[in-house]
């Protein structure tokens, strides 16, 4: 359980935009242990997806990893050539589920073609393009059954548009697990779904993760989902991890002013009649990030030192780290 599966250290990613170069990730370090679900939470534009894509080395062309290391099972992914990434890592060791399933699948191929493609590429390369088709098709059907799609053999010949949002996300889950990956990166897999369907998908993910013994990096902006699925949580703000803690610790005793403010923003019956806490200002633009602690212009507890240098992520209790100069004052 405590073996480190993935370790990201000092990862810095820059995007070149029309307005100049911006740091999407700034010295991000985190690790994922075997068999755990690490939740990554933050508002849009804070770098969550960039982190997921960096691990897969799938950053868009204008993004560049300028510094850092991504150790996966002892190998630095950043040193691996594209060919090895494709053969041994992507889809096989590390699978990814993206936010919008409708766009993740090719609309002109049946889902059978698309699942079999994955299987053939990773499991059955030697058999050539026509080898053992039936076997692969059966395996694809088995995967669909496993994710709870009724009539798997029939549904295999359907095209993506013939599935509902929840069903297509199940297909994505099936594809992700088809090669038994050790790490699953799930980037907002339930954001586009209704609550009852979301609950189904979360339940499915939980059971598959347990059965296959995979670790998960679960990316979401929804604190509720994160609190339900993760063992540990990393909170991101403007390209930094600002707090990193076991799930219960984080939600019961948030140490970073940003985490605290986020939790206050959640509406609920308890808050009825009261005003919600809002965070003044907004997430700074990629190219206009402030010096020092990036949260300082919006922080109610700001001090002089916050404007000068960025705080380091320090452990304040066992299993609880925070990047803030004044955490004790809260």
């Amino acid at each position, binding site marked *: 359980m405590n073996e480190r599966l993935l370790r990201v250290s000092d990862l810095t990613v820059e995007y070149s935009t029309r307005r100049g170069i911006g740091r999407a990730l700034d010295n991000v370090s985190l690790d994922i242990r075997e068999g755990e679900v690490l939740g990554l939470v933050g508002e849009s534009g804070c770098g969550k997806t960039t982190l997921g894509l960096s691990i897969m080395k799938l950053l868009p062309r204008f993004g560049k990893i300028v510094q850092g290391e991504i150790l996966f099972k002892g190998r630095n992914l950043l040193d691996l050539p594209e060919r090895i990434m494709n053969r041994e890592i992507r889809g096989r060791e590390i699978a990814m589920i993206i936010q919008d399933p409708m766009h993740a699948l090719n609309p002109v191929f049946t889902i059978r073609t698309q699942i079999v493609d994955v299987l053939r590429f990773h499991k059955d390369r030697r058999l050539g393009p026509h080898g053992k088709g039936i076997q692969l098709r059966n395996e694809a059907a088995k995967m669909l059954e496993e994710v709870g799609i009724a009539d798997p053999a029939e549904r295999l010949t359907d095209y993506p548009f013939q599935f509902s949002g929840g069903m297509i996300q199940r297909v994505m889950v099936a594809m992700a697990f088809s090669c038994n990956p050790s790490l699953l990166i799930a980037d907002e897999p339930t954001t586009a779904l209704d*609550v009852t369907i979301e609950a189904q998908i979360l*339940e499915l993910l939980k059971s598959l993760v347990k059965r296959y013994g995979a670790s998960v990096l679960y990316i979401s902006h929804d604190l509720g989902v994160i*609190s*339900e699925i993760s063992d540990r949580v990393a909170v991101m703000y403007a390209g930094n991890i600002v707090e990193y803690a076991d799930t219960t610790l984080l939600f019961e005793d948030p140490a970073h002013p940003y985490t605290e403010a986020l939790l206050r923003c959640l509406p609920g019956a308890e808050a009825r009649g009261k005003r*919600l806490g*809002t965070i003044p200002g907004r997430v700074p633009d990629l190219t206009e990030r402030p010096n020092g602690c990036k949260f300082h212009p919006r922080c109610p507890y700001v001090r002089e030192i916050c404007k000068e240098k960025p705080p380091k992520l320090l452990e304040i209790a066992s299993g609880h780290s925070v990047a803030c100069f004044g955490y004790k004052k809260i």
Partner: protein
Amino acid sequence: MKKKRERVPLVQVQGLKTYFYKGRGILSKVFGKGLRIVHAVDDVSFTIEEGKNFSLVGETGCGKSTVGRSILRLVEPTNGKILFEGQNLLEFSKREMQKFRRKAQIVMQDPRSSLNPRMTAGEIIAEPLRIHGMKKYEDEIQDEVARLLETVRLSSEDADKYPHEFSGGQARRIGIARALVLRPQFIVADELTSGLDVSIAAAILDLMQDLQDEFKLTYLWISHDLHMVKYISDSIAIMYLGKIVEIGRAQDISDDPLHPYSQALFSAIPTVKHGQETKKIILEGEVPSPIHPPSGCRFNTRCPRKLGAICETDEPPCQDAGDGHHISCHIPLEALREV
């Protein structure tokens, strides 16, 4: 002219039905699937008191947005009555309708597609004023626009910007300003906070509450976000496949939902929990098609507490649990309460 009638609720919806017809086009006639009726809203009734927050909740395709649009006659209801200050809208002449439109406005779901990309924010907000001829002089209009932009906490300089220059939260504020410009009494807020980050959504909700106090507004919230609904509403109606399955005071429904669907819906919301683990009710399957809704109780295909044949054949009775709390279910009240 404005005589205040006592005790007439602002909006009363009675037996509202809105059907859509599919397959009227020439292609369908040639390839012959025939006429199919989408039962988007099927016999919905509720009342909204002045100054209150009423919420319609449900999943995608349950008909909640159609109800909101039907009330403003943006889609034409098939049957039923919509009373606004006691008068039936569906019998209004064109002229009366135009007057009514000053009193009732909508903030649309998608702020980007509901704002014309070729108009500046200022023009967008001023358009209703021009259409209704509320202000005669250009400088009056400009003043009003500037004032509204500040009311929704934007700056008056934003009037010259185009919609794409605004962030999601700001675009919603422009939608709100446009709805407010005619000084309405009633606003339909369709999925106002969906797709926004929590901190932005919280700011929008706070703004809406301030506006309500300032302008004495009545809101109809349409949302699938149960957290938000619990927070904001006085009354809640839960919809499933075109029908209201449970309706009542917000507190009663969120603390103690009785209908099996409401129970599943509330238990399914992911929450930041403190300590106690709650049991989740996970529904099987998906919402059936509103073209061929299940007979009897429409929830019978997914209901975890289905009684048997009666659920498939008979329309469920409306049971009164007191304080305006109504549930449509075959399971007797006492049995519903037990769980």
